């Protein structure tokens, strides 16, 4: 914590259970330092991450979403992460077109032995998102929930 006045982004991570989740675990057990900004959802494979999950996370107000899986060639299911790679490329580009900063959605390959890399990814991403500021995409300043069109 330390600098308590500083705004702490909230990140949501979808981590593949075979590599990245184990990597995150290792980061913890080996006492690697990284911001406590990330909440983790363990997925069977990074290929499980439906674009819907990403949008829902943004809708719920998470400031950034991380999708992390095994390095190419290391997928427990042989090819799952290759599909993730394709899908993520598309999602990032499309969200950018919509007006969502692509930095809010990031992807990484983190193996079970890369505790250090996981800490690094989260640290860097947290810093980047701190610069982007809070996610206000779906918030409504006037708390106008769309019901004001009628008298």
């Amino acid at each position, binding site marked *: 914590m330390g600098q308590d006045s500083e705004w702490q982004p909230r990140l949501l991570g979808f981590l593949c259970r075979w590599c990245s989740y184990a990597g995150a675990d290792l980061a913890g057990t080996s006492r690697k330092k990284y911001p406590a900004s990330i909440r983790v959802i363990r997925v069977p494979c990074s290929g499980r991450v439906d674009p819907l999950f990403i949008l829902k996370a943004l809708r719920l107000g998470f400031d950034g979403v991380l999708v992390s899986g095994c390095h190419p060639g290391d997928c427990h299911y042989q090819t799952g992460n290759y599909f993730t790679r394709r899908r993520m490329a598309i999602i990032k580009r499309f969200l950018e077109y919509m007006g969502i900063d692509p930095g809010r959605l990031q992807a990484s390959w983190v193996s079970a032995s890369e505790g250090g890399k996981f800490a690094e990814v989260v640290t860097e991403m947290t810093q980047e998102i701190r610069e982007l500021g809070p996610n206000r995409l779906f918030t409504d300043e006037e708390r106008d929930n769309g*019901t004001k069109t*009628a*008298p």
Partner: protein
Amino acid sequence: MTAKKIARRDIADLLNEWSREFGVFVPSRDEGVAKWARWGGGDAGFLEWYRNTVVPPKALFFPPLEEMFSFQKDGDGYHVGQPPPTEDRWLVFGIRPCDARALAVLALTFKDGYQDPYYLARRKNGVLVGLGCTRPYESCFCTSLGISPTDAANVDLMLTDIGDDFLVEAVTDKGKELLSKTSLVQAATGADEARAEEARDAAGARVTRKVDSQGAHEKLRAGFEDKDFWERVSAKCISCGICTFLCPTCYCFDISDELVKKQGARFRSWDSCAFPLYTKMPVENPRREKWRRLRQKVCHKYEFYPDSFDVIACTGCGRCIRLCPVNWDITRVLSSLPAQEQLRLER
């Protein structure tokens, strides 16, 4: 009461005047689609393009989405708040006779038995200023439903286009009150009234689409189980909600809750009998098949509603025909209903 008239160029001033006392809603296509929006001053440009809106004025009384009430959750339970208030006095300018009739049709359901507080509050506080049609669409068929495109039956104040002026008639006390307050109207002459009469006749003649609305009831009842017919006519329907959402007499709604960080609200929003999940129960769904849903839609308007309230729940506004992505046309379906004798023979 003798008729009055107002100059076309004075309409904007009239709206400005009313705006001081009422929330005034007029046809607008600021966002590229004709719907109702708050009058924001300027000139009454809509008079040039306005034929009817895509989104019917029912949306002002029964909005696509409204908060029924909000609530807060805390340790020992919920605190339910009051529904958000509606405007005390408001006015819709330019409503067409078909849509005005539709509001009366909606009221039948909303005030039958238990009172629907949301709709009825808006209805009570709202004033309807009608504007007769001069350019009905080719999809319009109001005259088949006993409505003339210049009908003053369901409005408070009625305007009829007579060229440089509009003939103005107060229909109800609300309308009289409106008129008594403005100095922009003047007495109409006999010639004005004659021109209005001409305009009315001409408008009625321009509605060329016809349907046998009275005969439909009997045929629909007789053909209710005619699965072949309903399957055939529903084949091209894509089960979207356009014809029901944008129908001025459709009132079906859904209720949904939301709770975010202990603050919540219950919403009601338009729903449609065209959607497969509309009647879905945990195990059964009485209208899983498309033809059953479509049959429900047609029968509700032309058979069930007349059975309940003695009035057809269709006003011939033609939106369902104009806006349907596959040109599903209720008038074609009604006119292709098998005659009763024919059905008897087949049996």
